[in-house]
């Protein structure tokens, strides 16, 4: 298992290198001069030179990259062009918000997806099966932020069961936290749950035809045990393989759904950064997101290895 983890970590090195180069070159790709962005229109030539020196823009590009990378590895992503707050601080402050949303919607997507997928596989052409198929078709066509708006209209504006906007940190009040993330998480997670249900269903249908399922039943093991232990463990293998992709989609979706519920997460930060061409902030956001995605990938890889002994290097 350790070997698998080390292998995966090593495989990340080229990816992270490319990401860091792409992210770093952001500054150079920008049509406007970052120094102008900082000092504004009223800046003098002297100020210009000073800021330029401070940003290290006079040094050769590869040196600048190494310095930037060295600081980034230590968690120093520079400070915002716009209000010179620490990028790392700003991102870390918003991270729990977006993570809450992503984690909760992933939980909803996985729980509903697996349950519906198993039910559909056990009873092909039943209402669960049809519903999952229909859900997957619609899930690909319904914008999650629009679904969020409709949820707000029904459950917040009309029924007043949940707050329409805002976010309560988990540490402040777990109950209020749950109330504040439940609608956005449903908006985000529903289409993924349908997609996961489709995958679980097809994997499960295949596994149920396997000899070892028939053998387990021939051995007199209880039906539920055969389904949930023997069949599901194997059916989840291909599902886990694409789970990190689904979670990446959810993370991206969270950026937009946050806007529906006026939640101050990474999405809000990103939109403000784009409007202000706040390059260090965007760099920080991209790096943090890549970090998240890579962590999720690593986690699903390990889960994959746990579920599928054949994937473990011997």
């Amino acid at each position, binding site marked *: 298992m350790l070997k698998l983890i080390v292998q995966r970590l090593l495989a990340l090195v080229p990816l992270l290198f490319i990401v860091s180069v792409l992210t770093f070159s952001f500054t150079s790709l920008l049509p406007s001069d970052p120094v102008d962005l900082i000092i504004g229109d009223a800046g003098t030539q002297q100020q210009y030179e000073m800021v330029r020196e401070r940003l290290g823009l006079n040094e050769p590009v590869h040196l600048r990259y190494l310095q930037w990378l060295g600081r980034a590895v230590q968690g120093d992503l520079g400070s915002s062009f716009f209000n010179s707050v620490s990028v790392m601080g700003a991102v870390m402050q918003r991270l729990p918000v977006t993570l809450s949303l992503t984690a909760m919607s992933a939980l909803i997507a996985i729980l509903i997806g697996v349950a519906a997928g198993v039910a559909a596989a056990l009873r092909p052409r039943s209402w669960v099966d049809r519903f999952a198929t229909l859900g997957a078709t619609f899930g690909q066509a319904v914008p999650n932020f629009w679904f969020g708006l409709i949820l707000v209209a029904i459950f917040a504006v009309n029924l007043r069961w949940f707050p329409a906007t805002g976010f309560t940190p988990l540490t402040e009040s777990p109950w209020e936290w749950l109330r504040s993330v439940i609608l956005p998480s449903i908006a985000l997670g529903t289409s993924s749950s349908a997609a996961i249900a489709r995958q679980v269903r097809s994997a499960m249908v295949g596994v149920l035809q396997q000899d070892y399922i028939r053998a387990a039943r021939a051995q007199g093991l209880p039906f539920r045990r055969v389904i949930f232990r023997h069949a599901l463990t194997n059916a989840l293998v291909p599902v886990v393989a694409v789970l990190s992709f689904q979670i990446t989609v959810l993370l991206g979706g969270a*950026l937009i759904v946050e806007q529906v519920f006026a939640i101050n997460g990474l999405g809000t930060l990103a939109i403000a950064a784009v409007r202000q061409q706040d390059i260090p902030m965007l760099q920080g956001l991209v790096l943090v997101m890549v970090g998240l995605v890579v962590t999720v990938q690593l986690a699903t890889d390990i889960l994959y290895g746990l579920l599928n002994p054949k994937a473990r290097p011997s």
Partner: protein
Amino acid sequence: MTSKPDTLSPAGPVRARSRLNGAHIVTSVAAAVLVLLAFLAVFADWVAPYDPLRQSLMEALQGPSAAHWLGTDDLGRDVLSRLIHGCRIAVIAAAEATTIAVLLGVPIGLFIGYRGGVWDWIVMRIVEAVVSIPGIMVAIAIIAILGAGLHRAMIALGILFSTSFLRLARGVVLAEREEVYVRSARVIGASDRRILMRHIFPNIAPPLIVQVTLTVGAVLLAEAGLSFIGLGVQPPQASWGTMLNTAAAFMDFNWFLSVPPGIAIILTVLSVNLLGDVLRDSIGRGIAVETRPETPAARFAAAPGAAEPVVLPRRADEVLRVENLQVMVPAPGGEVPVITDLSFSIARGETLGLVGESGSGKTLTGLAILGLLGAGVRATHGAILLNGQDLRALSPRQIEQVRGNEVAMVFQDPTTSLNPAFTVGSQIAEVLRVKQGLNRAQAWARAVELIDRVGIPRPEERARAYPHELSGGMAQRIAIARALSCNPSLLIADEPTTALDVTVQQEILDLFRDLQAEFGMAILFVTHDLAVAADICDRISVMYAGEMVEMAGVDALFADPRHPYTAGLLHAMPHASDRMPPLPTIRGNVPRPGDWPSGCRFSDRCDFRVAACDARIPLLGRERLVRCIRAGELELEAAS
């Protein structure tokens, strides 16, 4: 909707036809939606009842009315007019981003796929990096460089979605590059450019078209999302995304504002995706395997229910007694029998061979005993008495108790009959815990003992192995150990040696004999291999087309076959000593269930057929049973 299905025609075709119509209707609606969209996009200025930008603050945030069918927004602009003008934005957005994605992705993909090497490596790592970031974040980052606005946002989306076209084109090139015709083109000196254009590009077209439909749907959603967060289309221009942005701000005052643009997006994307599915299916149809024509379920003549009298003598130490078993499988137009009037018994410590070609119903017999026939297949007649208890009469829960404890089964392929996710030891221990109530430690210790008993060296260590880490022979020993873990009185072995090497086969057969001597269980040994049956069985029952045609002790059967089919099987047996004369085979094939002749089911393939064979043939005899009216007169050759 109102027309009733024709009650006279059979249910199947009607349902199939209505399903076809259903799909056809959906496709037509989807196409109509897209045609309407295109029409509105082109003629928005004429069709829209108002100027989409005309403000009228006196009429702000109104609900639907005769003057404003879909109401008005916060600035009193007509929602319907804005929706119609939004169609134009949607079409432009989809066309722009998709075109950019194709023009960027396909050439680069073709190039790196064809060239390979360092370019391929670098570009693919960049693609990997890009797809590891959430797509919307990539788009946001590109917009940070380019600036907001419809066209710039679409360039961003074009770059984002080009990765999928790049990978698609590269994949096709990598697959085609090694094809013979491409290599031969290279040999005759065609230029790279020519090869790419003439030989490889045509193969990209079909998957490309499918990918385009997928991308168009995704672009529409992404454009709406970007416009919604204010980075795409800029106000006051009317797009569905910006309309939703406005709606979000005024949820408390007029939530209806969010409905029309949402429906427009869903309908459009749904239509694009559905047409994409149809397109994918029709492109895929060229390589689709033609489905087998369905068998008519007509010719079965024997009246079900009119069972033959049981000819089995009752024996004192009987473990299993099967009487007049009939099994039906679902078929178009009803059910057809696959096993009819099957009766046999097995005594304690006895091995009965069930021999026949595939399709004779021998495996189903084993599954019928276990009550595991599978969806739609059912035993309709007869009794299955295990130690005097009729298994057919048991509830699912009761038969679950019987399985494992009193009857167990060993399957053909040991590598697939063990669960790949668990260690082999834990799979034996699980049975012991569930069926016998042992605790974890006891069950594990007993599992290791059993693994030792079936002749596996270093059992402690092997118990911790996963199935894929064991050889076929070793895995089959594990499967046997698991089957015997609860000491069942009947063991069903379904071709347990067929998937194994010849040298291993003998060892497994010896193991069966050995274990039977120790545990004393009765064995139902299902095989198509007469040599194996001769080795292990006490008696052999020959099955043909769902019924028993002959049953005798091993020596008697081999020395003096009474049924022409048995004689044919014996002649078809390979002998190691003389391979020179080609193996005789029985001409023709086993008829499929539903196609059985009404008389002797073997008559179509029999050299001794007479007119009387067209009548139903009974199974006759006492110690030896044979189902052939000419059994007494034929001089059949014994095995050489």
